[in-house]
């Protein structure tokens, strides 16, 4: 039951990264892929109907941790206090930017919100990667099951650690490249004209950079987290995840080639496979550790150590099995209603 909830939590995180990843990535590319107001409204029309539902997967992740692994939620959110609140501020500003921008047809008003949207999206991509980097590197847990982290110390990734060091920043930039590439693939799939052309070019360049960085980042992870390095070799699911990721990345880069070779829909699916495979491999390589202790390994918080009672997990599984298909059903319905190219709506009829 605990392994199942670990899998559900991993699945929810994966869905969050794959789904909100494309609208965060589109936000990071917003100022580069689209120049005029009409072009920028194409970008917003491509993510407008989806972004809010995508972001709910983040809240769903929090909910799953709350109900299944309350000790992990408590330690992680309070330990990263300032960083988490800054993420919250970025999420607030980004949502308001998307929703308020279209209400006034004024050049300065719209440019200001474009900048807020793009900057908040970029920061969130880096934060997400840095958060993953922190989890992989470990945090200074004490015997009471809590920790507190400063923003940075000596950037060495060795105790005493801070939120930012060479490793977590590396993972943050890797995530930015991967998510911006992912968002670019979505835009290439959903837009037309010069937005599509620029998105394709940017996405291809970014995903090529991801391919180049992938091995160094994996090696760095094995270096700062020896347990993960050992698990990499020993666990078949890690290899399966890695294989899916590799196939996805190759597909994405190939199908974003210019000219007649361009199949942006398949490239986006490839990018989805890349992100999913990577996260599956990471989750499988980390199991059963959920919050790694950077000092004494016995202080790490594991899934069995943090799990709620069996009765609570059973009750939650009951309603989750009903709620999950519903949530996926809404997504499928939205994708069907908004299939094909997203044309910028007439002023006042859309984002």
């Amino acid at each position, binding site marked *: 039951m605990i392994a199942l909830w670990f899998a559900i939590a991993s699945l929810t995180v994966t869905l969050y990264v794959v789904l909100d990843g494309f609208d965060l990535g589109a936000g990071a590319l917003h100022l580069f892929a689209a120049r005029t107001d009409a072009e920028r409204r194409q970008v917003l029309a491509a993510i407008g109907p989806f972004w809010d*539902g995508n972001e709910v997967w983040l809240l*769903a992740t929090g909910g799953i941790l709350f109900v299944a692994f309350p000790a992990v939620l408590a330690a992680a959110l309070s330990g990263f206090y300032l960083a988490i609140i800054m993420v919250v501020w970025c999420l607030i500003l980004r949502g308001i930017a998307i929703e308020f921008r279209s209400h006034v047809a004024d050049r300065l008003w719209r440019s200001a919100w474009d900048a807020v949207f793009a900057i908040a999206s970029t920061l969130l991509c880096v934060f997400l990667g840095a958060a993953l980097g922190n989890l992989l590197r470990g945090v200074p847990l004490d015997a009471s099951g809590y920790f507190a982290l400063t923003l940075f110390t000596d950037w060495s990734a060795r105790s005493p650690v801070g939120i930012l060091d060479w490793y977590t920043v590396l993972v943050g930039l890797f995530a930015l490249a991967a998510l911006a590439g992912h968002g670019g693939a979505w835009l290439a799939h959903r837009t037309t004209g010069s937005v599509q052309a620029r998105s394709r070019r940017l996405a291809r360049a970014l995903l090529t950079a991801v391919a180049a960085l992938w091995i160094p980042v994996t090696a760095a992870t094995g270096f700062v987290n020896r347990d993960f390095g050992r698990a990499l070799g020993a666990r078949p699911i890690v290899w399966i995840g890695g294989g899916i990721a590799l196939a996805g990345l190759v597909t994405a880069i190939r199908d974003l080639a210019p000219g007649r070779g361009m199949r942006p829909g398949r490239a986006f699916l490839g990018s989805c496979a890349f992100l999913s495979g990577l996260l599956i491999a990471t989750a499988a390589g980390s199991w059963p550790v959920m919050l790694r202790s950077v000092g004494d390994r016995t202080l790490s918080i594991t899934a069995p150590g943090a799990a709620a009672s069996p009765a*609570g997990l059973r009750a939650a599984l009951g309603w989750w099995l009903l709620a999950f298909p519903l949530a996926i059903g809404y997504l499928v319905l939205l994708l069907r209603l908004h299939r094909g190219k997203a044309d910028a709506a007439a002023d006042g009829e859309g984002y």
Partner: protein
Amino acid sequence: VTDALVWHRFQFAFTIVYHYLFPQLTMGLALLIPIMKWLGLRPGGEAWNDAARFWIRIFGLNFAMGVATGIPMEFQFGTNWAAFSRFAGGVIGQTLAMEGMFAFFLESSFLALLVWGEKRLGPRRHFLVSLALFAGSWLSGYFIVCTNAFMQHPVGHELVDGTLRLADFGAFLLNPWAIAQYLHTMTAAVVTGAFVVAGVGAFYALSGRFPKPAALFLRVGVIAGLLASVAAAFPTGDWQAKLVARHQPVALAAMEGRFVTEAGAPLTLMGQPDVAGRRLDNPIEMPGILSILAHGSTHEVVRGLDQFPVHDWPDNIELLYYAFHIMAGLGTIFIAVMAGAAVLLARGRLVTTRPMLWSLLLAAPFPYVANIAGWMTAELGRQPWLVYGILRTAEGASPTVHAGATLFTLIGFCGLYALLSVLFAALVGRELAHGPAPAGAIGTHR
């Protein structure tokens, strides 16, 4: 950690009060919009459809603010109240996670379709989308109230090895406190929605603009406002009060400023609690009424604060007392205003009776005050407990987050929300100035 506690409490109180300015209107409008859309489906109902379109735009702006300011509420359980989350997560995590999975996905998937999709969907499917938003937002309300109800009156749990575990899921989900508090909260949200709709109708009627929509707004606002104002007091407020009397007698004593235990306790209409002197100054009271409201008979004994140890008293009795009396006083005034307006509406004279229109216009902000004061009553009355009788508030805060960090983020929230308030007011002001318009004529205003 002790002085950090003050800032943790301030930050949660500030962010939740600000957040709740938006959902109370969207939950109220979520009921009124499908009614208008449904009236608009009938032949010749085009005017109702135009009215619904205007309120959907207001709904969209409020909803965006509600979503944005709701994010920190979810996170603060973990960031600021980590010890509480770890202690009670196995129980309250259920409803918080269910809110995300059942309500937020429903709302977020259909919001864009409600706001932008009228043309694409056609009238019937657009009506169905408005029902989906109603279901999502009212479901969301239940899960949150159910979470709060567990903190007010814990049921369905067991305490094992220093953490709470779920023992009876059905009992937890159908907590009688949750049901009473939900009905009271939702009728109060409809009060806000109805007063705002009626207030905007009165504004247009007084300024002589948009006479047709103004009449419709007044009609739907006054009818819904009268029904909801009455229901907020009786039966839902009465049920809530009886539960407080039964399960939180010390909170009831503090709400009413009863320092001394007595049979045939009076209801305090006005007065100032003097906590140091253990008495109520300058009281205006109705004899025997509190005993009736709390226990159903004038002879019943209502326990005063003297029956409880001081360390179990709510820690801010004055604020609790005034919050409760402001809510109850305003609730009474709402019934009177709406009853007067309903009489004029029935006689067909409401649109021309300017003093009544002025009353409706000026009354529109006060349901916000009453709703917030009501929640302050609930939350201050729960003190000094975080989970009533089980976990004290002081034990729930994050152990590793110190006062400076929390004060910094509190100031940050104040600044950010000040900015959002200005933007929101400007955009709503533009919508009000532009007014309701027939299909196609509405657009981005220049």
